[in-house]
């Protein structure tokens, strides 16, 4: 009887270690020689009245820490999807030799009250471990999602031409391949949100000095918008270059 109780307790402890979200999470090991992503990761679910986000984490020695970090990151990304303020500028300097990037001062801010509210409603819909990364799909509603392995896709059409919709603005974000894959996706998502901000509001200021033998131009682009319901729609990795692509969208009614 005592042995049976001990076994039961050990099993329960192991179960809690794996479940970072407090519910059953599916752990998917990628087969050797290739990454298999769940369908919901490459093509995010899109449902009216629900917003989805993915939380990322590198795989740590203690897998429980990875799940917990991915969940925390999922909460932050979900808050960004609901409400994010993007403000700042980027500058370019042009001369006879070409145009050079001079840096940017872009700030991406989340509503802290929204973050607290979402914390109590957060629902982990699925999770997976792919290579050295743990991902968790989160939302505020319990919705069944397609967690079958996503088929490897050739270059999607949105890489060259953004989808057109009368209701949504679309934007792409790209990131190089970093050591931790989770960082590549996080950076691509951040850039996609910033691109959405540029799409919605751009103020351009240009100062040009042109002489007979000289040319000097400073271009400053500024933006300042609040994006609401800006969700990641799709993801793709270029197999040749390792570049991570992300497609994001937000409703056109979003006010600047």
């Amino acid at each position, binding site marked *: 009887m005592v042995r049976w109780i001990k076994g039961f307790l050990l099993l329960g402890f192991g179960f809690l270690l794996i479940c970072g979200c407090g519910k059953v999470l599916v752990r998917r090991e990628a087969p050797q020689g290739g990454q298999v992503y769940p369908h919901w990761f490459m093509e995010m679910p899109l449902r009216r009245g629900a917003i989805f986000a993915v939380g990322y984490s590198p795989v740590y020695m203690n897998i429980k820490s990875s799940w917990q970090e991915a969940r925390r990151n999922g909460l932050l990304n979900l808050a960004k999807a609901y409400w994010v303020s993007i403000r700042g500028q*980027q500058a370019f300097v042009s001369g006879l030799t070409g145009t050079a990037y001079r840096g940017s001062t872009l700030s991406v801010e989340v509503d802290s009250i929204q973050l607290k509210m979402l914390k109590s409603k957060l629902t982990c819909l699925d999770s997976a471990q792919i290579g050295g990364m743990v991902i968790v799909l989160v939302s505020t509603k319990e919705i069944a999602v397609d967690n079958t392995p996503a088929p490897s896709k050739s270059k999607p059409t949105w890489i060259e031409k953004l989808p057109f919709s*009368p209701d949504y603005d679309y934007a792409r974000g790209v990131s190089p391949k970093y050591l931790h894959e989770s960082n590549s996706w996080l950076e691509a998502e951040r850039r996609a949100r910033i691109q959405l901000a540029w799409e919605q509001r751009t103020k351009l200021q240009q100062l040009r000095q042109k002489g007979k033998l000289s040319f000097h131009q400073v271009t400053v682009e500024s933006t300042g918008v609040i994006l609401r319901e800006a969700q990641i729609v799709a993801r793709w990795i270029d197999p040749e*270059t390792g570049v991570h692509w992300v497609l994001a969208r937000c409703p056109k009614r979003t006010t600047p």
Partner: protein
Amino acid sequence: MRELKLFVVLLLAGILASCAGSSQKVKPGSSGPCPEWFSNIPEDPNYFFGAATAVSRDLQIAINKAKTEGTAEIAKQVELHISGLTKKFDEEVGLGQDANLYAKYTQATKIVVDQTLRGVKVRYQNTKQEGTGWRACVLMECNLNEVDKGLVDGISKDREMYIRFRDSQTFKELEKEIEKYRQYKKEQRLP
């Protein structure tokens, strides 16, 4: 010694030139590293287009550079279009003779240019690896009808301006075109 100085100067110039990225504007008919749409810009009287290409070691920066160049190209075209309309209004309404009216009109056009740039979108984008960096080619677009609509709305908001402008041929033509555009948007369920 002089030769050594010359060599150092040339070496530094070479390093500086290789560090700077390049950004080229559209040269119609030119064949380059970009796809077909870059040199053969679509002909659409309802749109302004701005094509640009840029290189950088970071792909996103290459895209941003090209998009900024393309947007600047469109801004120039919008300003040119506005200045054409200003000339027409000047002939018909006598903008230059009334300082108050001219100031109001200038303010309205400034708002139009600012709002128009919010509507600049990417029609096509192409990226590819080039040496150790990336090349991005973009074709930006902006709807001409939105520019005209913004200007007519700006004029109509001010009673004094509207009274002076409404009977001019240019204003009537603009209103006609905008009405056509409104119908099109309604049919296409556009916002």
